[in-house]
């Protein structure tokens, strides 16, 4: 698919979204963003909260990084700085979001607590930015790709949270409780997601 910068057909956007969210699920297929997932997925509502925050940040930073890449890094011929620059952009954006959340809802701020600043180092977000520039996307597609990728993470962590809530850890050998069991759950779920992989090829 060669992108046409002026018209973006809806179907192509849908494809980008679905592929980012399911066939290439950042958590279950690419295995990125695992550490915050292990930490937070104990409860569904916390999972949804963090998932929404990650989706928002991923989508926004994907476009921001697209612009930075396209209009600064390429013209200045310093593409090799992309890792540092992307991280800085993400960190600054997260700081901004943190301020807004703090101002708007103290409850959400306290609930997200330490996880909000941790989003900065969530590799799913940096991963999304790097995958994004590896593909011939335009700004709209980059945004949708980020949105899909974050949404995929949200779906995955919510499912994992749901499963973890249902598991009665009394019957689990002590050494496997917590992160151990979660990794097994993630492994089985990722098998299920691999099934999607043949569906769309981008």
């Amino acid at each position, binding site marked *: 698919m060669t992108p046409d910068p002026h018209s973006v057909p809806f179907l192509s956007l849908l494809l980008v979204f679905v592929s980012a969210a399911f066939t290439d699920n950042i958590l279950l297929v690419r295995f990125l963003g695992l550490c915050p997932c292990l930490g937070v997925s104990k409860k569904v509502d916390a999972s949804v909260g963090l998932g929404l925050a990650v989706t928002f940040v991923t989508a926004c930073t994907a476009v921001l990084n697209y612009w930075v890449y396209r209009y*600064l890094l390429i013209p*200045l*011929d*310093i593409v090799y*700085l992309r890792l*540092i*620059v992307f991280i*800085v*952009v993400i960190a*600054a954006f997260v*700081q*901004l979001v943190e*301020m*807004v959340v*703090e*101002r708007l809802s*103290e409850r959400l701020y*306290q609930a997200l*607590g*330490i996880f909000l600043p941790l989003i900065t180092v969530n590799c799913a977000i940096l991963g999304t930015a790097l995958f994004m520039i590896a593909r011939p996307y335009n700004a709209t597609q980059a945004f949708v790709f980020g949105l899909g990728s974050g949404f995929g993470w949200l779906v995955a962590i919510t499912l994992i949270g749901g499963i973890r809530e249902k598991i009665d850890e009394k019957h689990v050998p002590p050494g496997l409780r917590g992160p151990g069991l979660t990794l097994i759950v993630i492994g089985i779920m990722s098998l299920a997601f691999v099934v999607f992989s043949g569906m769309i090829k981008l």
Partner: protein
Amino acid sequence: MLTGIIVSVLFLVGCGLVFSALLLLAERRILRYGPCAIEINDGKKTLEVDGGGTLLAALAENDIFIPSACGGRGTCAYCKVRVLEGGGTIGPVEAPYLSPAETKENVRLSCQVKVRGNMRIAIPESLFSIRRFRGHVEHKRPLTRDIVEVRIALDDPAEMPFVAGQYIQLESQPYRGRESVMRAYSVSSPPSDTRAVETVIRLVPDGICTTWVFEILREGDSVQFSGPYGEFRLSDSDRPCLFIAGGSGMAPIWSMLRDMKEKRSRRSAVYFFGALTQADLFYTEPLRQLEKELPDFRYVPALSREPPESDWSGERGMITDVLARRIPDMAEYEAYLCGSPGMIDAAIKVLQSGGIPPDRIFYDKFA
């Protein structure tokens, strides 16, 4: 090649600057809470502050100084206050420092609580009188090989009223790459001496503040501190007193004893002072003089590492053993302790087995 390097360096620096500027601007615009009222001690005082900062900073701006040794980083836990309303929930930085009893009492670390609206808080009454002072070093003289006496003459404000036993928080200045810190030092001068504060400072090897005092600070230099802090003081009773101190723990006791003399106190008192060798004793002459001036006072220095063959004819051994030997029945006494946490804990054990109830043992741990 060279331009490539220059471009990338400039770009990274530019990135950093632009983002910092944007964030600073955003902080100004977004985190604005407008004026907030902080009601202290049931309406004793109400402050109008600009919301958005920490409670500790908001109080300091209004000249109410909550003790703080870590500069608001949430590591010293000195800055506890009770937040009755408007403090929000306890954050992850505070939680480890608050006991269940304190949580129930709404105790919080004021450096971690943000002012986001009207608040009601409760602080000890004595904190109202804490001020920030500027002074200059009137003299700095060695007392032993690792203890100096530092006398700071007050410039602004010109006087500091305090109670014998209280301490100040001295602010060290940055030196050799080390940051400015605040450290507590007990005042050793008597309260009648309001225009200066004297301190007795022991060098902690590689300590930030003490190294500054020993190696950087010169006579005539300007210094900043806040005070007076602390509840360590003589009670109003007329029970006989046991003073127990080691090293620089001399400071508050030296202030109390001179205060007793000036106020013509008739209380009887014994002062046990622990040191390693004769060379580590100081103020011996004036203390012997006080034995004559106070109606019933004895000074008992005890040395734990004095060579056995030396000419020392006084007590030898650990201060706690000497105490137990000299005063077998302590039940009637009140005890005042000052020094390292290890010495204080050991002394408290001896005092309690000697029959002094815990509510008559007062101490300042130099932790």
